[in-house]
């Protein structure tokens, strides 16, 4: 029974849906071609936390860790990963076959700021690239453009309202 549940590897899914696999127990090395290269997680006064690999230091930070979701800042680039066990991977596969393809597009605030103007109404037909809202952040006005052709289902921000990063702004029906 225990043998069946033994977790002998972990899968890492990136936000771009790339899949990586690490056997357990986790080794302190990564194989590139035929060679293993040592990876070390270190920390000191001058550099803070870093990863040492191939004689090079890379700054690293765990920005967020929630359940099996991790945001990692590595060499100034942030990566969002989901960690899956062989079991949860299998379950995900099963679930994805029943869930239909979504035809709804939810637009979220790319940065914190203030909504200056809403240029569409519920029901408006929009074309890809058409400006929907104007979001002001750090005195710069940014257009929130439609990523798709479709129409507006609902609007979730009013002019002059402040929004946080990732707040839902608008929902579109893709056509």
């Amino acid at each position, binding site marked *: 029974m225990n043998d069946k549940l033994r977790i002998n590897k972990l899968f890492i899914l990136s936000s771009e849906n790339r899949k990586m696999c690490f056997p357990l127990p986790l080794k302190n090395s990564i194989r590139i071609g035929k060679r293993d290269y040592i990876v070390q997680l270190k920390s000191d006064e001058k550099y803070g936390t870093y990863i040492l690999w191939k004689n090079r230091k890379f700054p690293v930070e765990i920005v967020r860790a929630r359940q099996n979701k991790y945001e*990692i*800042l*590595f060499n100034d680039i942030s990566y969002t990963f989901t960690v899956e066990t062989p079991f949860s991977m299998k379950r995900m596969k*099963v679930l994805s076959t029943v869930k239909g393809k979504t035809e709804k597009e939810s637009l979220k605030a790319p940065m914190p700021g203030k909504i200056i103007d809403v240029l569409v109404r519920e029901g408006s037909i929009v074309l890809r690239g058409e400006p929907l809202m104007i979001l002001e952040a750090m005195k*710069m006005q940014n257009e929130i453009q439609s990523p798709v052709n479709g129409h507006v289902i609902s609007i979730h921000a009013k002019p002059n309202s402040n929004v946080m990063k990732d707040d839902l702004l608008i929902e579109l029906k893709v056509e």
Partner: protein
Amino acid sequence: MKITKILIANRGEIAIRIMKTARRMKISTVAIKTTAEPNAMYLSFADEVYDNTEDVSEIPIFLDIEKLISIALKTQANAVHPGYGFLAENAYFAQKCLDNKIIFIGPSPDAIYKMGNKTIARKLALKIGIPMAMGSTGNISNEEEAVKIAEKIGYPVIIKAASGGGGRGMRIVRKSDEMEKMFIIAGKEAEKAFNDPSVFVEKYIENPKHIEFQILGDTKGNIIHLGERECSIQRKHQKLLEESPSAALDDKLRKRMGKMAVQIAKAVNYYSAGTVEFLLDSEKKFYFMEMNTRIQVEHPVTEIVTGIDLVEQQIRIANGEELKIRQENVRLKGWAIECRINAEDVQAGFAPDPGKIEKLSMPSDSYVRIDTGIQAGSSIVSTYDSMIAKLIVSGRDRKEAIKNCKMALDKVWIKGTKTTLPFFRLLVRNQKFQDGTFTTAFIDELDKYYFNSEYEEMLAAWLATKMFSEENLRDSGTSKDPLNKSDMSPWLLNKRINQF
């Protein structure tokens, strides 16, 4: 009257930049301590610090004309250097300094006013025959008028704020039914940013290169140029990387454009340092855009290739000295590139990412110059801009400068906020950038995946695996699956789903 003491009406790296030259010239300096940054690095470079932390006024001190004049008088500074931004291009401030017998280190109030108002500047340039993009001769009051002009000169057109600058208050219009929307937005934005809703319309030059000429003029009427800078690497008209010279210019074109730049400066009897901006289209036709009447953020690249200290020249000119440099003696030697390392999240559309800089270490190679006002422990506050440092790299030619830039970028170490470093690391490896064929549209075309190499993502994934297994699988992986919350096997789950 000779300058003996300068009040620095600015902060950050440019305050330090000015104070370094002043010290070398044995001129003392006064810096202003603010509530927003009471421990800022620039304060330690001043001979005297004026403590303004008691000030509870809503206007930042660097924008408060009356207060700045009173500080200059109180500290007996007989000159003010405005740096860039804030009041650097405010004609009223320059005039107020003169009225109080304080030397304003910059051009005349008249030159600032004329070049600051784009419609006046356009008329001036038109009068002396400087090539310009076609457009309205004056401000435009409504969208019908804008549509009429756009139809005459042809789409696309760009709506610009008359009092604008620095890339703000501009909207591109590609067809007439977009005009109403864009006209309203541009007007609103102009009013908000510059207190003046007036706009004008001009032909939009598709995918141009941004080329600007550094100007130096004295109060005796001598005006020269110090060659060009290319600033085509921009995002939403905000410059990110600048270089001097430009790969797009040959000596002949440089001479022609330089001559035009000097003519524009002459038209307003310009003195001090200034910059004439042009757009260069794919057929190497150039168009006058605007003149900036201040020292610019990107001035170091010109200093490196010409060997001229621009702040020193500004101070000498303000002292009434005659320019000692002749146009024929100006030589551009080598190549210089400046990267603006800002606290911005490039993966979130360059959104500002203010915060405390925990660790900071910069390369110290001979080909690197760092202009910064930030050190480990400093904070990037949302009150001011998001600049951390300017990384200025030189080489014998463009190829070597890019190679050195690559190495220097890999040595920069910043922890605490996200930075524009990934963008530059990607950029210097890009073929189009290396070829020098890029235009202002380049960033939109650039591949947005900021991976340095596939191994970096793998290393980050390794860390996520390490964290996950240390937190959840302490007894070496033989326990219950931490992600199996339902305790339902996938086979059973599959069966249930199939029943629907």
